[in-house]
């Protein structure tokens, strides 16, 4: 038995994260009427943010499985850290 590399994105606790493009995030913020920093944050050092290659200033879309809504979409702003 040896050790192996694993992909954390496959873990059942990790919801689907999608890195948004600049245009997509601008469009989203306009629709919501908020600034980037008003979104919940995610650290650039977060293992999932790293796996996606997200940089501070990006916006990540999170598609969560929700016990009430079935699927729920949330957004996180990537901050330094």
């Amino acid at each position, binding site marked *: 038995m040896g050790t192996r590399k694993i992909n954390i994105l496959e873990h059942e606790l990790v919801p689907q994260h999608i890195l948004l493009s600049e245009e997509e995030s601008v469009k989203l913020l306009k629709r919501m009427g908020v600034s980037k920093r008003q979104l919940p944050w995610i650290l650039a050092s977060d293992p999932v943010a790293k796996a996606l290659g997200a940089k501070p200033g990006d916006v990540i879309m999170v598609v969560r499985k929700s016990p*009430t809504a079935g699927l729920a979409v949330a957004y996180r702003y990537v901050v330094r850290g």
Partner: protein
Amino acid sequence: MVESERVTEDVVRALIEPYIHVLPKRLVEEIVKRVSSYGLTIEVARKVVDRIVGEYLNSLVEPGEAVGMIASQSIGEPSTQMTLRTFHFAGVRELNVTLGLPRLLEIVDARKTVATPIMEVYLSGEYAHNRELALEVARELELTTIENVSRAITVDYIEYSIIVELDPDILENRGISPKDIIKALNRIKGKKGSIIVDNLTIIFKTGLEDAIKLKRIHDRVRSLRVKGIKGIRRAVVRYDEKINEYKIITEGSNLVAALSIEGVDHRRTITNNIYEIAEVLGIEAARAAIIREMRNVLEEQGLDVDIRHIILVADAMTLNGRIRQVGRHGVAGEKPSVLARAAFEVTVKHLVDSAVRGEVDELRGVVENVMVGSRVVPLGTGIVKLLMLYPALQSMDSVDEELSSS
């Protein structure tokens, strides 16, 4: 289609289409399934859909609603009924696990170290259905030191060597061969050291000439890791009847190391240490873990708390990408209002300090508004500010006139 024809799922789906971005996915699916199952005509179906959408929109939380206060009351009150005891893990008599109020506090306080760290290690493929293979994984997990597999470890002060007498039964039980011990000893033997093997007796000649150093080496040898993962004190194989699989419960937690061991299902294996989850799997996984753990504690105690309150707490705790505690000062400590702080504890100190710093109280919270006697708190209906656009008002007057004159 003919008007009197019964609606199908596709027709109902088309009826909801305009609201698809307003309704949660689950509700959409349920409407489609239910409405199409009653054999309604399209007119009736349309009415039903409209009514459901209307009811849904009516049931939404209104802007300004103090949801945090409601959540804290809704979790706080049932918590007073929880036991203060720790219980044993369901099905594993030997393993102790913190439950009830102490565990709930651990979660919301965001403690870095939990009192009883535990991992639930799920197994993949064949490992999950074969007890022997599951035991093998458990052995890979459980930390085994030289001391664990020896009858005696003695120090020979004349030869400056350490004599390890292995216990053959334990060796077999733990799946360890004397070779593994030698491998482990080789890691610490240094340049001068040498190892002599005589059946089950291993003599480790340190090559040192200092009795104090020898004693220190003796301690190191005893606690030297032969097999397993740091931090895992025990690993117990259980048969989970719900999923018809073997799984391993561990005392002690080390998620990164456990996930990379062969046979471990890295998709499902979890720990009850939320910080560890945040570190290994990210903030979103930590949020999910907070919800899971809190729900488990409350459910186990037979308390019925709506999941939305728990979700709100988890959202607040993970808002800025790090896990923040919900302490007695609310989420992440200090209130911005001087008056609110002064009302809570050490009144004079807060007032003096804020005067020195020249702080301004914006009167945005409940406490400070009650103190100054204002009738409107920026909450609920009070959150709305009214502004008047005179030009628009005048043009509306003219519309009114037109309407009344016609």
